[in-house]
């Protein structure tokens, strides 16, 4: 089985993001970048599936600037086998990225693609679903599991996604509960926060990662239409919420909600 995992370079979720005064983007000075947190979970899941099956290959793919090498190396250090970086400096939308992945999945003859449910920069939550449509494959989004992140199953590194007999069984987080889907493989699965707790890269893992293959492809070499249909015209800071006041006691709070705000 060959598993493709997508890895996006995104600003650290703990960083404070500010919009540039001219609205052309965010201020990137001194900004730290990380693997999109959902993609870390996808990498972890792929590694668990590999460990369980004994015979899978885990290939990381990313689209973006050359600096995304750093994030791919992190994934390789976690234990992935090799990586492909499609070097692109231009703006892309989810559809363009999905088309690139479509091409890579075909070239690599992958059986399973794992993506994060959402990139924490654009918050689009689209790429996996689009890729599934382009491939004509079934999809399971927001993969989670029934055991908690503190369960024994989690501690022993059991994959939450079950694959056997050419089918995947996926528990997913939806409105009002957890749904279980069965879908034939090949398939596209996007992962949610509670699927697993990703491992850290070990020191030997980091050493090994340096020697693993990281192939770079020029975006133009793929023969894919990457003209974005969704255009970002400008960014503005969100309306600021005024901090209110501190109240001295529970009584004062309840009175204020009742008499002043009139919400209870």
């Amino acid at each position: 089985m060959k598993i493709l995992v997508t890895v996006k370079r995104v600003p650290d979720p703990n960083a404070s993001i500010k919009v540039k005064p001219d609205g052309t983007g965010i201020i990137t000075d001194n900004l730290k970048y990380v693997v999109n947190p959902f993609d870390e979970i996808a990498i972890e899941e792929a590694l668990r599936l590999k460990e369980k099956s004994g015979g899978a290959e885990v290939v990381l793919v990313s689209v973006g600037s050359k600096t995304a090498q750093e994030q791919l190396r992190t994934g390789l250090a976690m234990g992935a086998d090799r990586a492909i970086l499609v070097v692109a400096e231009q703006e892309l939308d989810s559809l363009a990225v999905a088309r690139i992945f479509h091409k890579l999945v075909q070239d690599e003859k992958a059986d399973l693609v794992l993506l994060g449910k959402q990139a924490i920069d654009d918050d689009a939550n689209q790429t996996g679903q689009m890729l599934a449509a382009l491939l004509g494959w079934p999809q399971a989004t927001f993969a989670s599991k029934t055991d908690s992140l503190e369960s024994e199953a989690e501690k022993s590194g059991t994959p939450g996604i079950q694959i056997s007999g050419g089918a995947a069984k996926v528990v997913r987080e939806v409105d009002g509960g957890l749904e279980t889907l069965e879908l034939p493989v090949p398939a596209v699965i996007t992962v949610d926060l509670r699927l697993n707790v990703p491992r850290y890269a070990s020191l030997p893992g980091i050493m090994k990662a340096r020697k693993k293959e990281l192939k770079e492809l020029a975006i133009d070499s793929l023969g894919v239409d990457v003209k974005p249909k969704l255009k970002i015209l400008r960014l503005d800071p969100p309306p600021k919420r005024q901090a209110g006041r501190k109240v001295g006691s529970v009584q004062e709070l309840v009175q204020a909600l009742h008499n002043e705000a009139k919400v209870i």
Partner: protein
Amino acid sequence: MGNVLVFAEHQHNKLIKPTLVGVTAGLEAAKKNGGDCFAVVLGSGVDAVAAEVAECGVKKVFVVDDAALAKYTADAHAAALAQVVKDKGIETLVATATAVGKDLLPRVAALLGAGMAGEVIGFNDGGTMSRPMYAGNAIATVSIEGSPKVVSVRSTAFDPAAKGGAKAEVEKVTVGIDASSKVTKSVDFSETKSDRPVLTEANIVVSGGRALKSGENFKTVLEPLVDVMGAAMGASRAAVDAGFVPNDLQVGQTGKVVAPQLYIAVGISGAIQHLAGMKDSKIIVAINKDEEAPIFQVADYGLVADLFKAVPEMTDEVKKLK
């Protein structure tokens, strides 16, 4: 002519409130584009749903009644929806960004080769739209090139459309859903059972964070307050990850987005990812023992206190009002 089609989601053949939000957004988009707003209902035995949608101000309701659509799966629904968009010459497809909307719309967009904007919060003059990015740290003005266009809208950003208007025409349409487009099976649904209001629809939301320390404390400390206020219960990611409460109570960037009249954050620090899901609430109350907690920067009323003392006290005070 920029005609708009609203995907009218239902659950077990019952219309859900987020769909009415989608209708409002669709009507607004149609007005800005100078076109008409239609709706489409997919399912099996959905005449009643269609009739309800027909009273919400849309021009016409299309119904695809097909056994293959009886249960929602992305593959069959996307194939059917893309076909309706093509057959009816739709320019803009709109749905609310519920779990189904998020699962379905990008798939439809790719089938149509269309650009998509997700979680849109406003339609502007000149055809542009606004949507949050970076956990709400930036509001992007975006445009979609070409036609059709696909748009999901944030459920808190538009008021639900009023029902009970003049009945629009309901038209049955058939789309050939070939069996190969439906291979996914939904085999189980474990519902989070609750008698409380739905989190995304409640007027009051009381959310608990890591500080609650256990599921047991959610029950014994927080729930009495939730119930005396007739509120829905929410939680931070930390509380959900720790297994104190079910997943679908998570409020935030990657959970539910809520904007109730009153949001009470109990023992929640106020990380940007949490704020992304609640900072449009009308009144925000924070109860936290750390006076430096970032949640106080967005709170209308802040109480610096130990929640294990303050929450039971508050429950009693609210009871007195009743």
